[in-house]
C-alpha cells in the first residue's frame, strides 16, 4: 500500500480521529522497527554467502529513488517557500553560524545562517538513519526545506531543518514514520544508536555515531516539521533544555 493510497483513505476521515486512523491505516505497510520483518534478501549473480544482516539490509525494489544530488549552481537561496530564518528557533546557548558551504554538503553559502535545500533530498537524508527499511514510497515529499546552522562557544556544530509539507496529514505521517526510524535504532550500534527520551512533548533522542554524539529535538507543528540536532559530546543537554527548544518550535 503506497502512501498515496493511504492518504486517499484518510481524506474522508474526521479530523478528530485523524491521528489514530493514520497510524492504523499505515501500519500494514510501514516498515516495522524490527529488522526481521523485511522482504527476502536479494540474490545477486555473484553472491554465494548472504550477509549476516542481509534481512536488515534487503534492498527495496522500488524505482522511486533519487539520483545523486546535482552540484550547487550558485549560492543557495536564503528562503524556501514560505520558510525564512525566522522559521527556525535558535536554541539557548547556541548562536547562528554563517557557513561558506562545502562540496560534501552540496551547497554554496549565501552569507546568511540559513539556506534552502531541495526538499526531496532533505526528507530522504533525514529519514535514512539506516536501521530499518524506508523508501520514498512510504511518504510524500515536503514542499520546502530550509536548513540553518549553529555553533556553541566550544565551536561544536548544530543543525536546524524545517520541512514544510503541503498539508498537515503528510507532515503527520512523515513525523510518525521518522519517529519509528529513530526508534528502530535504539537496539543497534550501527550505523547509529539512539535513545529516546520520554516525558517530552515532541521527539527528543540521544544519538551516538561511531565518531560523534548528538541530541536531537524534533516536533511537528501543523504542516511543518522542525528538527534540531546539536553536537552533545556528553549527552548533557537536559530534558528541560530540550523541552524549551520544543516550546520554541511550537511557538
Amino acid at each position, binding site marked *: 500500500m503506497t502512501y498515496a493510497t493511504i492518504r486517499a483513505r484518510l481524506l474522508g476521515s474526521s479530523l478528530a480521529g485523524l491521528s489514530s486512523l493514520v497510524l492504523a491505516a499505515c501500519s500494514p505497510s510501514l*516498515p516495522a522497527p524490527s*529488522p526481521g520483518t523485511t522482504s527476502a*534478501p*536479494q540474490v*545477486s*549473480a*555473484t*553472491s*554465494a*554467502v*548472504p*550477509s*549476516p544482516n*542481509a534481512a*536488515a*539490509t*534487503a*534492498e*527495496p525494489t522500488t524505482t522511486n*529513488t533519487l539520483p*545523486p*544530488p546535482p*552540484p550547487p549552481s550558485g549560492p543557495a537561496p536564503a528562503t524556501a517557500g514560505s520558510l525564512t530564518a525566522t522559521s527556525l528557533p535558535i536554541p539557548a546557548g547556541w548562536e547562528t*553560524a554563517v*557557513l*561558506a*558551504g*562545502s*562540496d*560534501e*554538503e*552540496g551547497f554554496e553559502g549565501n552569507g546568511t545562517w540559513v539556506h534552502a535545500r531541495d526538499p526531496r*533530498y*532533505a526528507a*530522504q*537524508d*533525514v529519514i*535514512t*538513519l*539506516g*536501521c*530499518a*527499511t*524506508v523508501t520514498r514510497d512510504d511518504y510524500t515529499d515536503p514542499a520546502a526545506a530550509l536548513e540553518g*546552522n549553529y*555553533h556553541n562557544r566550544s*565551536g561544536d*556544530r548544530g*543543525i536546524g531543518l524545517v520541512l514544510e509539507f503541503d498539508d498537515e496529514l503528510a507532515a503527520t505521517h512523515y513525523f510518525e514514520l521518522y519517529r519509528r526510524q529513530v526508534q528502530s535504532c535504539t537496539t543497534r550500534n*550501527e*550505523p*547509529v544508536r539512539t535513545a529516546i527520551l520520554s516525558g517530552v512533548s515532541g521527539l527528543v533522542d540521544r544519538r551516538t*555515531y*561511531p*565518531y*560523534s554524539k*548528538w541530541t*536531537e529535538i524534533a516536533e511537528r507543528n501543523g504542516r511543518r516539521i522542525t*528538527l534540531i*540536532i546539536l553536537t552533545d559530546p556528553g549527552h548533557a543537554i537536559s530534558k528541560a533544555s530540550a523541552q524549551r527548544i520544543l516550546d520554541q518550535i511550537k511557538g
Partner: protein
Amino acid sequence: MGVLVSLRRFSRCRAATSSSLAIAASLIVVIMMAGQASAETPSPIPEPTTTAPSDAATANTSATPSAESTTRIAAEAAGSLSLSIESTGGPVAGHFFQDIGSYAFTGDATDLDDGTTIEIYRRTSASSWTLQATTQLSGESYSATLPVRERGTFVFASTTGGAPGGGDEISSNEVMITVEDSKITLDQPVAEIDSLKNPTISGTIVPARSGVEVHIDVKRSDTYQTAETTTTDSSGRFSTSLSYGKGSLATYRIRGTYKVPNRDRWEVSSSKTFTRIAVINAVITQTTSADVEKTYHAGCPVGPSKLRTVTMNFYGLDKKMHRGLLIVRSDLTTQVIRSFDTSLRHRFRIAKMKNPNVYDGNDPRQMEANNTSAFNCRQVVGNPYKLSPHSYGTSIDVNPVQNPYRDINGKWWPENGKPYIDRTPYRAGMLTKDSYLTQKLRSYGFFWGGLWSPGKDYQHFEYRG
C-alpha cells in the same frame, strides 16, 4: 644391457704372485676411488691396497659374476683375463649418465690363482692409464663397482697388476664406455606477467626420472638463492609456481638446479628471465550484500543491485603492486577503471584500497587508515541531516591522509593528514589538478574536491555527468 666386450691379449701369461695367493681365502675387494675428482684434475693414482672386506665393499662387489653379464670370451691360453662393464643403479638400462649410477665391472680369468689382484684402469691419454679400482679374483671371476662421474667416452681394461702395456701384467680386453650428459633444462617462462601473479616455472631433467628435488633459484645481486623447490615426475618434468618478487616491478633471472647423487656437485640449467609488470587487471562483479555489509543500510538510495565491485591492482606507497577494490555505481565502472589504469601507468601511488567494511563503514576511521574507497551510504561527517554523495556510489575518496578534507566548520580530516594541508612540496600520493588521476576522472565528468572553494576536499571525486 650388455656392454660390448672385446678380447685382446695384451701380454704374455704371468703366474699369480705368491703374496696374492696368501690372501685369497676370501673375497677381498678394495675399490680404489682414483679419478673421483673431476676429469680436469685427476687425482693421483693410489697404491692398490688390500683390506678385509667391509659391508660397504661387499655391497659394491660380488664374488659371482653378474647374471646380466653378456659375452664371455674364453682365454686363448692359460693366464687370460676378460672385462665387461654394465651400468647399474641408473635410470636407463644400458646407458651411463654423468654422476648417476655405477659402472659394474665383471670379468673372468683363466689359469690365474684364486685371490689374484685385479686392477681396473681407465685410459687417460693415448699412452697412459689411470687406476680406477682394485679387486681380487674369487675362483675364476671378479667384480667391482665404481660410481659414474664424468661424462665423455672412456676406455677401460683390467689387469693382473700394473697399467695395461706396462710389462708383465696380463690385460683384459678394452671396453669403451660412453657416459652421457646429465642435465636440467628450464622452459622459457612467460616473458612478462602481472606482478601479483606467479609464473609457472617448468623444465626437464635428463635422464628422465621421478622424485628428483629441483630447486628454482633466483639471482639477487650476484648470487642465486633458492626460491622454490619441487620434484620431478616420471617423465623428468617439473613445474612449480614462483611467488618470488610478487608485487615488485622488476626483471628476475632464474635457473633450475639439482644435486647430483654421486658427488657434491649441482647440475645447473641455463638461466631464463621474466619480468613482473604493472597491470590493472580489473575485474567487475555484481556487488553482493556481503560486499556492502557495513556500508549499505536500510533505506539507502542505492543498493547492491545498482552497484559493481571493481577489483583492481594499484601501485602502493611502498612502490609495490597491491590489489584492492572500489564499489561504484554500475554505469561508472569503465570510467573508473580507465582513470585508475592511466594513473597506474604513471605510477601514482595509493596507500590502500580496502572494502570499507573493514572499517565498519566508519568514514573517520577509514580516513585515518588512509583508505581509498567509493560507495559508503552514510551521513556527512558533521551533519546527520545530510547523506554523503558516497551514498550514491558516484564519489571516490583517494588517499585521505595525503589529500585531507576540510569540513564545513573548518576542521581538517583526518587528523594525521594535517601535514598535507600545505600542498607543497609535492609528496607521493598527493593529488593535484595535474595528477593523471585527476585529469582522467575530470575528463569523464567527475568533479575534484580540490577545486572547491572555499572548502577543500582534496581526496574527493564526484561524478556529475
